């Protein structure tokens, strides 16, 4: 029996692509037929909700009622994944709140799965964030995401320094999100649909959209690359019990498996 999982996507710095990564995760789980719900903490105007309105609620993660709305319903919601797109600056406060309400202890008992996607920026400040964040995550799956989509080069990192931070967290896994051309990226932004729906050439209401076939091809190629990364780190294993996850062989999901209906949901 799969256990419900909570995925936090965040960074203390803004503009590093948190919402983009959240969108790829929602598309990935949709392609694997894993049910999801999402919370967008860009309150009151959510960005994630623009792309996935059917499954996304905009919440203020610092308010107790909204914390109850998210965390009290993880098991009863009927969805396998609860994804929370944490807005800039709220990563550490949210983890503190989770610790205070006993959520992190629940995950230690194995009742719930918990994973954090920490989106890294190119500055050394991002490395300090790792140290800050990791102290909450001894039993969680911790993914350090190098997001190249917005042309980040990570040029000012010294490899040794990075490794010293990286090695402090025994379960940290590095994920690289490849670059998508600006024009394709911009077109998907304007169309305000999930990546899978864009690839399937559909509008948000499921009608034929007439997007450029070239741009759809580039987005499909890019999203396949992202999915390959998620397969590589065995992302869906977070749903399994800790014992069975270790032994399970990997399966791969391709973007072609996204049906228009599924992708636009």
């Amino acid at each position, binding site marked *: 029996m799969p256990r419900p999982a909570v995925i936090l996507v965040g960074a203390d710095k803004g503009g590093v692509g948190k919402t983009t990564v959240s969108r790829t995760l929602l598309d990935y789980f949709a392609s694997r037929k894993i049910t999801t719900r999402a919370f967008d903490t860009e309150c009151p105007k959510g960005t994630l909700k623009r792309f996935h309105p059917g499954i996304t609620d905009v919440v203020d993660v610092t308010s107790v009622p909204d914390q109850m709305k998210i965390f009290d319903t993880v098991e009863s919601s009927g969805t396998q994944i609860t994804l929370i797109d944490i807005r800039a600056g709220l990563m550490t406060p949210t983890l503190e709140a989770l610790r205070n309400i006993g959520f992190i202890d629940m995950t230690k008992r194995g009742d719930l799965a918990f994973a954090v996607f920490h989106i890294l920026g190119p500055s050394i400040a991002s490395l300090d964030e790792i140290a800050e964040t990791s102290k909450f995550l001894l039993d969680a799956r911790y993914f350090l995401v190098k997001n190249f989509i917005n042309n980040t080069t990570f040029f000012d990192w010294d490899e040794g320094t990075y490794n010293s931070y990286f090695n402090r967290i025994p379960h940290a896994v590095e994920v690289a999100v490849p670059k998508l*051309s600006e024009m394709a990226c911009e077109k998907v932004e304007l169309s305000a649909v999930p990546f899978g729906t864009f690839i399937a050439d559909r509008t948000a209401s499921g009608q034929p959209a007439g997007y*450029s*076939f*070239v741009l759809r*091809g*580039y987005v499909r*190629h890019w999203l396949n690359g992202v999915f390959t990364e998620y397969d590589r780190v065995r992302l869906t294993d977070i749903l399994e019990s800790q014992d069975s996850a270790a032994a399970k062989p990997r399966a791969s999901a391709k973007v072609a498996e996204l049906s228009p209906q599924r992708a636009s949901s």
Partner: protein
Amino acid sequence: MNASAIDRRNTPVAPSPEPGRSGRAPIYIVCSPNRQVGKTMLARLLAEHYMADSRVFAAYDLSDEAPGLADFLTHYVSIPNIRDMRSQVRFFDGLIEAGNVPKIIDVSHREFANFFTIVDKIGLFEEARRRTIEPLILFLIDPSPVAAKAYGLLRRRFSGISLLPVRNLTVAKGLPYCASFPHASKLVVSLEMAVLGHAARALVEREKFSFLNLAKQTPPYSDMSARTRAELDAWFRRARFQFREIELSLIREQILAALQSDLCA
């Protein structure tokens, strides 16, 4: 009906298909990773084959050195650019939207890798087939290891797409097909360009030369000997015979596919 006249300064303006013609329209991709193997000559022959029957076609010159296809067939050939995303969208989207019109693309040796990388990323061939367009890669073979390697790569990467080795006897006489350039197509055709005599060759290499004007009594056509005229006429007819074989093979494949689909229904 006249062959399509396209503004050569810009990319595809889709000509309308011929009334009454249906079925899959071919995209001929004339290519080789090497120069001086006869790519432009083959593309010219194909274009003039359609012109001789007053059939609609579209031709694109992706060469970056003169004389290219557009230098010989000035009014019939577009010169696209595929170096940046915006140009790629204009060219490849136009190519796909042009629908049921045969298309000829002369890919220069310098654009070879870039062209097929883009084609692979955007899924051009898959999309073309969804839109009843049949991609045919006409690969000019030669004895160099580069050609054999490139042919092998195309064969592996685009399995299921017709990859036809074209033997230009001027550069590939005696070169065994089977080892390095195995036939990789359902179409049972074998393409060969015979050696031309020096006088005939010098004539066809002149810009503005057209096989369709062989009967003209104005220079340079009036200056050629009867023997050269007969040689060129026979050479062109032989090439056209092979192109008709391709067209017939395409029709045969379509009929077989339709029959198979009817039997399965």
